[in-house]
C-alpha cells in the first residue's frame, strides 16, 4: 500500500510499504477513506518530537471501512464505517475505567521511553513517535487499529466523511478544552490559536454557554473564520497587544478562562518571540511557551487556564507566581477522545455543529508532502487538509 512516511525533519514522502496485518485478537484493519493532517503533525515535521525514525508512517486522524477483524472483536463487522480515536486505549485499566483514555496504562509497548521523558507514560498514539508506541499511522491506504473494540466508532451512513472525520481528534480536543473551563453563564473565554482545534474550542465554548468568545491569532483568514463561522471576536497579536486588548474587553478583570490551543511552537512579535526561538534552537528549552505565558497573565483571578496545545518537554520562564497567587486553575491533557465521540456525534446529528467548516483543502494521498509544506507555510490560506487515500 501507499503511505505518507516521515523521513527526517521537513521531509515526508509517500512510499510503498507492506499492508498492515492483524497482530492481536482485538485488532481491526481499516481501509482508509479520509485522513487529515493535524497541526501536531507539524511538530513532527519540524523535528521537535524525539524518537522518530526514518520511515515512520504518519497520521492520527482517520476513518474508513473495516476490512478485517481479529478474533476477539465482537462489536464490529467487516464493512462497518468507523472513525478511529487518535489515542489507543484498552478500555480496561485504571485510567480507562475513569474515562481517562489518553493516559491508558496498557497501550504503549514503549512506555519505558516515555517514562524517561515524562516520569510516567501515556497511551500509545498512531503515527506519533516511538516513545508513544511506534504505531504506524493513518496517512495511508490501510491501517491496523489495536483495541478496535474499544476505539473504533461506527458512524451513520447519512453523515459525510467530512462531517465525522474530526471526531478522531480535533473536535473532541477543542471540546475538552472548553469543557475543562467549567463555563458559567456570562463567561468570556479567550482562545490562543485559531487553527482547527482553536476553532472547535471556540465553537464548543459557545455550545457550552459562553457569552463572549475571543480568538487570538495572526493569520487574517483564521481570524475571519473565527468571526464568521463561530461568532467570535478576534485579536490579531501582530497588530495589537493581547493583554491590553483583553483588559479593555473585560473591564480590566481578564477573561474567565483562557484556552491555549497553540502549544510548543508559539510565535510572538518582538523580544519575547526571539528569546524563546533562540533558547529552543540552542536546546535550552524544548518548547516555546509564549501563548501559555500570555494566557496565564491575562486570565482573571480564580479563572481557568486550559491547555490543549501540545507540549513536548520543558519550558522556561513559567509565570508560576501569577498562577499561584491569583488562584488560577490549570487544566491540561491529551484529549480522552473515546469519552466524547458518541456525545459529539449526537451533536453533529442534531445539527448543533458541522465540523466540516474548518476544511480548506482536499488532496490525494500522493499530494501529502505538498500538503505538509503548504500547511506549515500557511500558503493558500490553508487551515485544514483532508487526504482521500483510496
Amino acid at each position, binding site marked *: 500500500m501507499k503511505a505518507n512516511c516521515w523521513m527526517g525533519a521537513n521531509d515526508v514522502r509517500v512510499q510503498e510499504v507492506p499492508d498492515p496485518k492483524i497482530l492481536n*485478537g482485538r485488532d481491526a484493519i481499516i481501509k482508509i477513506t479520509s485522513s487529515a493532517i493535524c497541526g501536531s503533525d507539524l511538530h513532527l515535521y519540524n523535528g521537535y518530537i524525539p524518537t522518530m*525514525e526514518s520511515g*515512520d508512517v504518519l497520521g492520527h486522524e482517520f476513518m474508513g471501512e473495516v476490512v478485517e477483524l481479529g478474533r476477539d472483536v465482537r462489536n464490529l463487522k467487516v464493512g462497518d464505517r468507523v472513525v478511529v480515536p487518535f489515542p489507543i486505549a484498552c*478500555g*480496561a485499566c485504571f485510567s480507562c475505567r475513569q474515562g481517562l483514555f489518553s493516559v491508558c496504562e496498557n497501550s504503549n*509497548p*514503549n512506555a519505558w521511553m516515555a517514562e524517561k521523558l515524562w516520569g510516567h507514560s501515556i497511551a500509545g498514539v498512531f503515527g506519533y513517535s516511538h516513545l508513544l*508506541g511506534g504505531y504506524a499511522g493513518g496517512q495511508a491506504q490501510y491501517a491496523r487499529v489495536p483495541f478496535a473494540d474499544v476505539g473504533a466508532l461506527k458512524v451513520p451512513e447519512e453523515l459525510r466523511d467530512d462531517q465525522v472525520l474530526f471526531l478522531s481528534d480535533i473536535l473532541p480536543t477543542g471540546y475538552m478544552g472548553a469543557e475543562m473551563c467549567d463555563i458559567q453563564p456570562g463567561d468570556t473565554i479567550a482562545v490562543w490559536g485559531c487553527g482547527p482545534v482553536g476553532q472547535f474550542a471556540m465553537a464548543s465554548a459557545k455550545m457550552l454557554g459562553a457569552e463572549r468568545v475571543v480568538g487570538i491569532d495572526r493569520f487574517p483568514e483564521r481570524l475571519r473564520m473565527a468571526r464568521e463561522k463561530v461568532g467570535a471576536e478576534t485579536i490579531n497579536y501582530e497588530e495589537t497587544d493581547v493583554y491590553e486588548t483583553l483588559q479593555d474587553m473585560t473591564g480590566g478583570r481578564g477573561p474567565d478562562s483562557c484556552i491555549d490551543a497553540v502549544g510548543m511552537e508559539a510565535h510572538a512579535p518582538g523580544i519575547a518571540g526571539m528569546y524563546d526561538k533562540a533558547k529552543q534552537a540552542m536546546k535550552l528549552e524544548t518548547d516555546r511557551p509564549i501563548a501559555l505565558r500570555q494566557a496565564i497573565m491575562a486570565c482573571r483571578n480564580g479563572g481557568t487556564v486550559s491547555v490543549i496545545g501540545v507540549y513536548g518537554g520543558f519550558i522556561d520562564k513559567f509565570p508560576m507566581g501569577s498562577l499561584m497567587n491569583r488562584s488560577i486553575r490549570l487544566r491540561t491533557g491529551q484529549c480522552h477522545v473515546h469519552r466524547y465521540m458518541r456525545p459529539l456525534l449526537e451533536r453533529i446529528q442534531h445539527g448543533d455543529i458541522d465540523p466540516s467548516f474548518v476544511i480548506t483543502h482536499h488532496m490525494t494521498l500522493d499530494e501529502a508532502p505538498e500538503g505538509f509544506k503548504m500547511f506549515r507555510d500557511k500558503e493558500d490560506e490553508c487551515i485544514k487538509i483532508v487526504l482521500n487515500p483510496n
Partner: protein
Amino acid sequence: MNRENAERVARGLAWFSIGLGAAEVFAPKQMARLIGVRDNDRRRKILRTFGAREVAAGTAILAQSGTGRMVGVWSRVGGDLMDISTLGKAYSTRGANRKRLSIATAAVLGVTALDVICGLQLSASQNGDRTMRVRRTIIIGRAPGEVYPFWRDANNWARIMDFGEVQNLGNGQMRWTVRIPGLREVSWDTRITSDIPESMITWRSMEDAEIDMMTTLRFEPAPGDRGTMVSMEVQFVPPGGALGAAIAKMLTRIPKEATEICLQRAKQLIETGEIARSDASIFMGPHAAQPPEQVPEPAFSH
C-alpha cells in the same frame, strides 16, 4: 586501606582538588611563585586550565558514589601525571627556582601515591560485590488471588520475557536462555525456593548453574481495592572472566527496562487479554513504525 577509609580519603582528595584548583584559577600569579616558575600570561593560562581540571575532578568525586567516584579518583591520577610532566619541563625554563620546583614535584608525587592507593581500593571494592539488583513495582487491576496464579504458571514467563527465552520444565522449574552478543548462548535452570500463595514466590538458579539468579515476586493488595501491587526483584551474580564481563555489561543495560517490560506485559495480559504490540515493537532492534513485511518469529511478544 579498607573501603570505608578509601571513601574518606577520596572525599579528602576531592576537597584538596577543589581548594588547589580554586587557588590556581583565582591566584595564578601567587601559585606560579609558590611552585617556583616565573609568572607570565601563558603560565597563568596553563595554571587556570589546570585549576579548572582540579575543580572538575573534585566535584565529580564529591557528587558521585560507587563507580562514578572511582572514575573521579582515577581521573585525578591522570591529572597528577600531567602536573609532574609540566613541572619537569619547567626546570629548564628561564628564571626557574629549582628548589621550589623540587618541593612542588615531591608534593605532587606524594599526592599521586595517595590517589593511586585510593583508586585501587575503590576499584577493588567495586569488583568485590558483583551482584546486580533491580526492583520494579506495578499495580495490576485484579485481586492477588488472580494475579498470583499467573506468575506461578511458568508458561506465562515465556510470553512476557523480553531478552531471552524461558522454557517450562515442569514442577515450577524453568530454563532461561540468553544470547550474549558476540559470545555464545548462556542457559541456566531455576527452581522455586519459596512459595507463599498470594503473597510471595522466589526462584533461584540450581546449585551448578553458570549464572546465579534469584527472582522474587511479592504480591500485596493495593489500597482502595485497586488491585495488586506486584514487585519484582531480580538479583544476578554473573560468572567471572570474559563471559562474566560481557554478561555484566549486557545486564547493566537491560534489566531495568526488561524487568519493567515483563511487569507491563503481565499487566497487559491480565487486564486486556493481550500484549500491546505495535508495528515497531514486535522487532527486537529499531524498526520504522510501518507494517512489517513479515511478522518476526519469535515475535517479541506472543
